[in-house]
């Protein structure tokens, strides 16, 4: 039972990584691509770590796996903010649907 839960969580994480990569390749401007990158960072890695922590040997190993997630959350939020602010300061306009 626990094994199937772990497999399902790993599959969901892999799906979010695929979605992040496809979004990074297909989205039109820097801000949209930051959004796609954050999905892969936060949800993809989160689900994969959760799926592995469910079937870890000991509580300490599970907690160590889950410790990676808040670190990546903080790092991803900081980098996303810095890049978006720099893009705004450089005068890169956000993409709009009419302005093809």
């Amino acid at each position, binding site marked *: 039972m626990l094994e199937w839960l772990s497999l399902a969580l790993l599959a969901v994480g892999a799906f979010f*990584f695929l979605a992040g*990569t496809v979004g*990074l390749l297909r989205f039109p401007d820097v801000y949209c691509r930051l959004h796609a990158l954050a999905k892969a960072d936060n949800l993809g*890695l989160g689900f994969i770590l959760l799926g*592995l922590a469910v*079937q870890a040997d000991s509580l300490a190993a599970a907690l*160590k796996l889950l410790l990676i997630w808040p670190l990546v959350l903080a790092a991803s939020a900081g*980098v996303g903010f810095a890049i978006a602010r*720099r893009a705004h300061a450089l005068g*890169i306009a956000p993409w709009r649907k009419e302005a093809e």
Partner: protein
Amino acid sequence: MTSVFALAIALFLLVNLVVALLAAARGPTPADRMLMALLFGTTGTAVLVLLAAAGGGTPLVDVALVLALLAAIGGIAFAKRAWQGEEGGDA
């Protein structure tokens, strides 16, 4: 069975990473290429954790931890110091 599945997911993520690498080599703007490098950092972290579960042992989790933190330093250095414009110019 779980370790086989973890290896399969790791292979899938490595394929993802290679596709992103091919795109990063010909990305249109400097920011795109840097975002690809950040995606490498996260995907590499996930691959390392999965390899640890697929028989690599717990030391690989430490490698994943270091990788996750230092990929962010590269992104901050890019945003604060290196990114000067839409198409940088060739220094």
